[in-house]
């Protein structure tokens, strides 16, 4: 096990897959000569050259479509969209071309491409550079959506996404690229479906994904130490399709659920998880499930306002205490 950073894990997955298969390429803004905004493609340009590590113009719709077209002929492009905010410009191609082409061709054509993008609110980046957009991607038929919460997942999910014949969107987080964690030394493929228990518990399930897994883990620690509440943390690293069986299993054990998301609440992971709980295990519930989420505002620039808009572990703790009638 190597203790490496999130960006290093992503870079390693690129490197291994590009060394294995000459049809694996990567493309995006500043990923080549400049080495990538978050260093996720560092050193690849020097190793694999400009034909396979492509610095694109700032044309998200154009280069995303170009990558998709290349994938029709068996190329496996890893398309980096520098910030998820820019993905709006690429969504026509991602949704109308990549996600639908297998279906509308009756299975003749597929778009085996990987879209990687940095989502999430960083620090004071303002309304047009702080979006969380997982809610949009997870509602599209034909597109797989995963979101790594640690370096091991970042490495293993990218490896699997490159090999998979379906288009996969990988939602990363601007604040997580320097996070360290254990990654297996040998080749590792993280499943593109399912969920995993990040911490086992018995009294309440805290559902998180990507950065909110860390809020949940921190909250679980506080709940255990200060309130004697045993919280289970379920990491929903796969947002589409959501893991119905995993959600049901955990809630059937703990009988209570809190869903923590950095995205805004109306339409999102929280509402979907609650719908699944209703459908799968409603009568197992001892209390109504609760969502912890961002305020429905364009992200403010002001530091205090920004902090007020985005939840954290304290909000998760408060939600759990409320659920137990302790707040």
């Amino acid at each position, binding site marked *: 096990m190597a203790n490496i950073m999130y960006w290093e894990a992503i870079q390693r997955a690129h490197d291994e897959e590009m060394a294995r298969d*000459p*049809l694996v*390429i990567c493309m995006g803004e500043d990923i080549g000569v400049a080495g990538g905004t978050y260093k996720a493609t560092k050193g690849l340009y020097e190793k694999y050259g400009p*034909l*396979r590590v*492509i610095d*694109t*113009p700032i*044309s998200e*719709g*154009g*280069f*995303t*479509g*170009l*990558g*998709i*077209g*290349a*994938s*029709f*002929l*068996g*190329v496996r492009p890893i398309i980096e969209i520098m910030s998820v905010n820019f993905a709006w410009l690429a969504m*026509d*191609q991602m949704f*109308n*071309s990549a996600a639908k*082409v*297998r*279906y*509308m*061709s*009756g*299975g*003749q*054509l*597929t778009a085996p491409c990987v879209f990687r993008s940095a989502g999430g609110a960083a620090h004071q980046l303002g309304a047009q550079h702080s979006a969380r957009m997982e809610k949009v991607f997870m509602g599209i*038929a*034909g597109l*797989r959506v995963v979101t790594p919460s640690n370096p091991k997942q970042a490495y*293993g999910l990218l490896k*699997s*996404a490159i*090999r*998979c*014949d*379906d288009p996969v969107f990988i939602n990363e987080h601007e604040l997580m690229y320097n996070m360290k964690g254990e990654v297996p030394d040998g*080749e590792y*493929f*993280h*499943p*593109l*479906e*399912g969920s995993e228990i990040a911490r086992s518990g018995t009294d309440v399930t805290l559902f998180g994904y990507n950065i909110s897994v860390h809020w949940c883990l921190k909250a679980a620690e506080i709940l255990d130490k200060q309130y004697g509440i045993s919280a289970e943390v379920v990491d929903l690293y796969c947002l589409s399709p959501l893991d119905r069986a995993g959600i049901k299993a955990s809630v059937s054990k703990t009988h209570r659920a809190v869903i923590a998301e950095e995205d805004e609440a109306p339409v999102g992971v929280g509402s979907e998880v609650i719908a699944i709980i209703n459908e799968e295990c409603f009568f197992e519930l001892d209390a109504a499930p609760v969502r912890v989420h961002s305020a429905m505002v364009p992200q403010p620039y002001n530091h205090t306002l920004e902090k007020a808009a985005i939840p954290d572990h304290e909000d998760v703790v408060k939600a759990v205490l409320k659920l137990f009638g302790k707040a």
Partner: protein
Amino acid sequence: MKLEDKKRVLREMVLHRRFEERCYQAYIERKIGGFLHLYPGQEACCNGVMEAARPGHDYVITGYRDHVHAIKCGADPKEVMAELYGKETGSSKGRGGSMHIFDVSKRFMGGYALVGGPFPLAAGMAKAIQLKGGDEIAICFLGDAANNQGVFHETLNMAALWKLPVLFVCENNLYGIGTAIERSTAIVHQHKRVCAYGIEAAECDGQDVEKVYAAARVAVDHVRHGKGPYFLELMTYRYRGHSMSDSRGYRSREEEEMWKQRDPIFILRDRLIAEGALTMAEFEAIEKETDAYIENEVIKFAEESPEPRVEDLEKYVFADRETQRPWLTGKAA
């Protein structure tokens, strides 16, 4: 073009015309649903270009007016008609419809319904050809109105920058849905728009298949020999409306008649007759044989084919699970 090729192309264009006219009738009879965009008037464009290219070898992509392009690439007209009927035997198994004809075995990479959407896809296929080192080219057929999308410029820039083997064929039929080109576009002659990217471009009469062929020979040779992208504009006209819901109130019948005087099929027919290579009786026989083929084989096949099964509704959303198991479960071999 050689004489035997001209005679074959005439026969093909008659098939393309009659196929589309039969679609019109089937639509009126409600055998075909959704939107239907027909090609009559523009036949010389697709035929002239594909005669200069290598159907089944070169990769072709287009918009929603796609039936004839598919057939010209080698798709079976029976399967195309079955697709319009929404049948399981259709080229896209009834899941695509008129705007999404595909025959990947013939390298017809599909019809797409977002105006301009195929531009970057075509450039991407060209990128794949460049990486793999083949002698194929990518050919993107779109209308003039697609050039008003942002991806038109984004794609031209990348195609020129990376010298991609892609031929853009602009079938300029003078209307974007129901808006005349001079009311939507600052410049009527579209090839002038690409010079800013340093891309070779030409304009040609799109009604005369031999002229299109000659212009396309130059274009295809340029692209196939590694000289980068090429933009070929063909001036043409669609006789019918944009789609079936269009009553053509935005243009005059006189204008339509003027264009019909330069009908692509009649131009070739009359030339062959003048050369003594065809008689009017032979031409009428071709029409009759074509109609009989469409009725007795194409329509019959579509009519008699089965519907897709409702149990298969979710088939083709994702790749077959068994083949993807290692990546979905993390248990790689």
